[in-house]
């Protein structure tokens, strides 16, 4: 490579122009907005109404708690399942591989609106097939949309259903990039398959799983469409209101752009912190 600044920026210019207008500038403007009270015209400088409110608003803490609950339950469950699936899909013993792959990977292409509609009907309290199954084993029907815990469980199940295949694809690619001769050598040394998995596969997969973890954390922090569409905008009574939904409400239903910007920056800071923490915990201890 040789220095060709002019040529390089010629190629970069169209993208950078879009990037600067629709990402860089908004993010700076957002910072400015986060200090403005936008409750009435004209907007005035009043960080007490924005940053001051973030730190003491119970509704914000409720959304934060919901998001962290989803994060703490859904992400580990999903990554565990994804790893398990990847290992099973990678097995040479597997039959009907194409069909089985289809089952897990197909949800990845399904849009939120489409799958939200199906989940709403499947989990319908009175007529849904899920409650019919629950009742058929003698348990009382679950009020998926009125019981706060059940609604949260529903969101977690929906998100897991949608995203586990996506993560399994990535982990599967990681598995397939592990050279086969490592296993052959281990088999010759009479290392059991279980030990092979624990001492060879998992350590080699760590960077890939870590990558999935960071993606999933960022994804969970941005969860919006599922509680918007499945549980009727964060219902019941805010029990599934995520940070993303809270921000949407503040910005676009209450028209409080200033406060919503402060919330947005808080979400961003949290996402960066949690991702950094993940990377730090998962760093190579050498």
């Amino acid at each position, binding site marked *: 490579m040789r220095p060709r600044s002019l040529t390089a920026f010629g190629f970069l210019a169209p993208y950078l122009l879009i*990037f600067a207008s629709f990402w860089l500038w908004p993010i700076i403007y957002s910072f400015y907005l986060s200090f403005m009270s936008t409750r009435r015209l004209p907007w005035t400088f009043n960080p007490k109404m924005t940053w001051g409110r973030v730190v003491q608003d119970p509704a914000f803490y409720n959304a934060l708690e919901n998001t962290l609950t989803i994060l703490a339950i859904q992400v580990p469950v999903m990554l565990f399942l994804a790893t398990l699936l990847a290992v099973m899909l990678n097995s040479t013993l597997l039959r009907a591989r194409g069909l089985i792959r289809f089952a897990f990977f197909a949800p990845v292409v399904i849009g*939120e609106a489409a799958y939200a509609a199906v989940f709403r*009907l499947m989990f319908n309290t009175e007529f849904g097939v899920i409650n019919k199954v629950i009742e058929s084993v003698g348990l009382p029907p679950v009020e998926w949309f009125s019981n706060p815990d059940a609604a949260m469980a529903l969101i977690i199940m929906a998100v897991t259903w949608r995203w586990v295949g996506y993560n399994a694809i990535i982990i599967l690619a990681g598995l397939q990039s592990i050279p086969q001769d490592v296993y052959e050598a281990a088999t010759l040394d009479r290392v059991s398959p279980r030990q092979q998995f624990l001492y060879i596969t998992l350590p080699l997969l760590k960077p890939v799983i870590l990558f999935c973890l960071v993606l999933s954390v960022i994804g969970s922090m941005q969860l919006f469409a599922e509680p918007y569409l499945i549980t009727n905008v964060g219902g019941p009574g805010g029990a599934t209101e995520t940070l993303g939904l809270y921000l949407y409400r503040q910005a676009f239903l209450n028209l409080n752009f200033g406060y919503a910007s402060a919330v947005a920056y808080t979400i961003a800071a949290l996402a960066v912190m949690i991702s950094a923490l993940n990377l730090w915990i998962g760093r190579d201890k050498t």
Partner: protein
Amino acid sequence: MSQQNAASRKRAIALHAVIVPLALIWVFPIWMMVVFATRPDSAIFSPKVLLTPGNRFWENFNLLQDDLNFTRTLFVSVVVAVVYTVLSMILTSMAGWALARYKFHGRIAVVGIILGTMTLPYFVVVIPQFILVARDFGLSNTWVALIVPPLFNSLGVLFMRQAFSMMPAELFDAARIDGVSEWKIFLHVGLPLARPMLAALAIILFLASWNNYLWPLLIANDTSMMTAPVALGSLFGLVDVSWGGIMVGAVLMTAPMLAVFVFLQRFFMAGITAGAVK
């Protein structure tokens, strides 16, 4: 040997005992989508559980069209996704080329800032983006507003940078010695070599645009400029609505993507895994 065979058969049985039921659970909602789409509402909301498709697809489709002009929203979605995909591929492959093939001042900074878009939640930009596009430019309900702002997505830049930097420099240097311009080297040497990566990128970008929910929800209020997911979601709150019709909409949104997935699986996988595995 036979002992080993017996052991592996046992493992095969255990494997299928776990994965087959799981696979059935995973495919069940997709199956139910078809069931609901082909049954009348009286069957969907009945105490009897129905697990097999009916024959009411066209009736439900007509009910959906009565509730809203869904074919129009599909048209909007197709146009937006196609144009977005093409534009994004042009912009990001050019940028990826520059970052992969040239040394220049500020390269590290550009890469750093672009990486930043991947880790920061979209919510930080969506409010000012909306104010800029909707209020300042007055572009709500236009093709431009639906297509252009999401082009900031840097996925393609990193993707194409990786693709181009894996190519041996000699390929391009030979052309340079012949006096071919940099633009033509990119166009006639670089891009053709990156064809498989471009295919993978195209699928991922198309899918992202096709399923995009929040931005079109905010920027398109006029019924004639709504995308299919937003239009479908807007029906959930109606009392007098055909759920069979909604499910037809879900099927129409999903089926083309499933076809893409089945027939272009290789590129699809490559698109998702790019960046994760080096």
